């Protein structure tokens, strides 16, 4: 291994790398005309419904051949990031609130302001007549619109009333405060030695957001550059769940750590009578239980303000490198407004984003899906305005929050240390 040789190798290799990186700098290529790309994430029901929509669009627009791409949520982002880096992102893409700011703030998405509007306005390709303002504005960042809402979503508590009755503990209703709930959950845990009060939500940043809002602030400052709440609120939250775990109000750490999908939810296994999640998830847990799950608003701090909100977390966005944004906009309009499209989708993407769309659905009365739709309809007008779009770096904080919650539950970190760590990391991540 003479130094001469290695140096020469390095030189050659560097040249190759230069070639590679200069390739990356090439201008946008985009999709071929008449063949716009459309990509989404989800499970098999989503894939089937969406492929049907692609066929439907093709039959209504014979000159356009939509090229579909799809994968499961976790895999989707690896591919999308790679494609975006290679300037070949699909024209229309499903975008999650968790990543919206990551993509939008870095110029990967088109500002849709020019396309959004009333049907009556000319040149507005995507109609948002029917959407409630909170839903229509969900993907708004600094005055620009980076996505069109696919659904309306809210936090909810799922209650297995059959189990509650069988345990002989008092019934619960929506007047519950976190304090009541804690006492009740411990009572549940004491009733039988294979049951705990509630699924552990210590690591749930999403439910915690509602909690924060009940303490007078949003989770993030308006410009998304920092956390807006007091560290004490977080310590309170984590201490609350620590206390529940210690008193059978929530399962021990190892039980919660085994959760890996809806099939392993303690609620699904009958280990707890209460679980929490986004309202449409009730439909994914319900198949594992015989009796119907009841959907309640989560407990409140009892301060009189509700922290709940209804907004949208999944959008249709257009890549900033799209070579045919107009066609892309037409596709999005079709996906959210076409009657046939709405009927085909049903609620596979969540509760539809508008009253009109909900009205077009023909769900079985009493089905979990119908209950989810009812819940959103019931609370939409009474909850306070939704928080702004989650800021850049949200996904990183989401992962960190869960991890820190887990550290506390396993006794690997103290509540205040973990809270300090979260605030330190947030200061680094948020800009």
């Amino acid at each position, binding site marked *: 291994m003479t130094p001469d040789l290695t140096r020469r190798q390095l030189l050659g290799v560097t040249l190759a790398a230069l*070639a590679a990186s200069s390739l990356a700098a090439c201008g946008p290529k985009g999709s071929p005309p008449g063949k716009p790309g459309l990509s989404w994430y989800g499970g098999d029901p989503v894939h089937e419904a969406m492929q049907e929509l692609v066929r439907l669009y093709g039959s209504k627009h014979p000159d356009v051949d939509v090229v579909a791409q799809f994968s499961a949520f976790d895999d989707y*982002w690896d591919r999308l990031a790679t494609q975006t880096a290679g300037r070949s992102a699909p024209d229309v893409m499903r975008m999650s609130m968790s990543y919206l700011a990551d993509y939008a703030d870095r110029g990967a998405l088109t500002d849709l302001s020019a396309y959004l509007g009333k049907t009556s306005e000319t040149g507005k390709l995507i109609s948002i007549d029917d959407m409630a303002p909170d839903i229509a504005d969900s993907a708004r960042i600094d005055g620009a619109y980076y996505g069109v809402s696919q659904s309306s979503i809210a936090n909810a508590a799922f209650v297995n009333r059959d189990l509650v009755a069988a345990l002989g503990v008092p019934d619960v209703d929506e007047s519950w405060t976190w304090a009541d709930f804690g006492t009740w959950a411990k009572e549940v845990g004491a009733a039988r030695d294979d049951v705990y009060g509630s699924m552990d939500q210590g690591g749930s940043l999403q439910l915690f957001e509602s909690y924060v809002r009940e303490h007078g602030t949003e989770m993030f400052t308006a410009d998304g550059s920092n956390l807006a709440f007091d560290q004490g609120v977080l310590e309170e939250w984590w201490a609350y769940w620590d206390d529940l775990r210690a008193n059978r109000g929530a399962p021990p750490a190892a039980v919660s*750590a085994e959760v890996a999908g809806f099939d392993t939810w303690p609620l699904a296994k009958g280990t707890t009578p209460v679980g929490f999640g986004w309202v449409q998830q009730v439909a994914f847990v319900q198949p594992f239980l015989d009796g119907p799950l009841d959907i309640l608003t989560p407990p409140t701090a009892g301060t009189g303000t509700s922290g709940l909100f209804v907004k949208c977390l999944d959008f249709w966005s257009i890549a900033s490198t799209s070579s045919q944004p107009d066609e892309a906009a037409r596709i999005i309009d079709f996906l959210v407004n076409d009657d046939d499209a709405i009927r085909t989708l049903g609620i596979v993407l969540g509760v539809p984003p508008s009253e009109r769309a909900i009205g077009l659905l023909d769900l079985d009365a009493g089905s979990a899906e119908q209950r989810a739709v009812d819940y959103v309809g019931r609370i939409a007008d009474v909850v306070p305005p939704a928080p702004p779009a989650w800021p850049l770096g949200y996904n990183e904080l989401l992962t960190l929050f869960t991890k820190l919650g*887990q550290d506390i539950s396993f006794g*690997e970190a103290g509540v205040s240390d973990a809270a300090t760590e979260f605030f330190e990391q947030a200061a680094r991540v948020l800009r």
Partner: protein
Amino acid sequence: MSALGELRTLRRQGAHKGSQALSEAARKEERAAYLFLVPWLAGLVLITAGPMVASLYVSLTDYNLLQPPEFLGLANYLQMLDDERLLNSLGVTFVYVFVSVPLQLAAALGIAVVLNRGMRGLAFYRSVYYLPSLLGGSVAVAVLWRRLFGADGLVNQGLALLGVHDAPAWVADPDTALGTLVVLNVWTFGAPMVIFLAGLRQVPVSLYEAAAVDGAGRWARFARITLPLITPIIFFNVVLQIIHAFQAFTQAFIVSGGTGGPSDSTMFFTLYLYQTGFGNFQMGYASAMAWVLLVIVAAFTAINFWASRFWVFYDD
């Protein structure tokens, strides 16, 4: 072996005879070598080297994948020293490498020897023992592992029959989760087993016959004939399994649902690297991590190669 050694010496002496003729032959040999290497060299230049050096450059930048990289210098490398999760992931990875590689190779070699010859139904057994490796990183393994090593999984049910009732929820306990991944790795010993088998198959039967005539016992034959002859193959497996184990990703990713949990106990270095690069859009930092890993792995490989002079016997 001594006869072979003599031949080797003769050959070396021959090689130094007549330098004029030699250089002509040497030139021809070198030309042939490069010709044989054409596909590999083309692959290196066109496919492998560019992205590798690109990642080395990216490791010196702030690169979020969506915007052009911005040059930072060594900041990413310095940041690693303060990153507790990274240092933890390095620790997890080292434990995994040093526990699972020896166990897996011992299992693979032992079973390859048993399944080599002298039994009926060998083909069947070999296939059965390879089955787990076919599953590899399939998503089904995730469910399977939770069913086996969960709180109410099969392992604990078995333990309960034996009277052990307070066994942990193996996959969900930070103290034992990494252990289940080691078991998973050992369980999928099929690849090194097959390589060992192929190596054993190259050992000439005539040598065994000669030794049997000499009255050597089974262990003696294994230690004196088999083992030395397959040292190149053992060496190969050691080197490659260490390289692979340092880059272990799929199984931890699948079993932990991508989190490296519980509580980072299965957060392998590459898993953290992946989360950093793709989840947090810090590809610059992730690339720096990758190059640190490369240096570590290269160091281990170099040590392996150096140590191989003392225990690996080549026939050439």
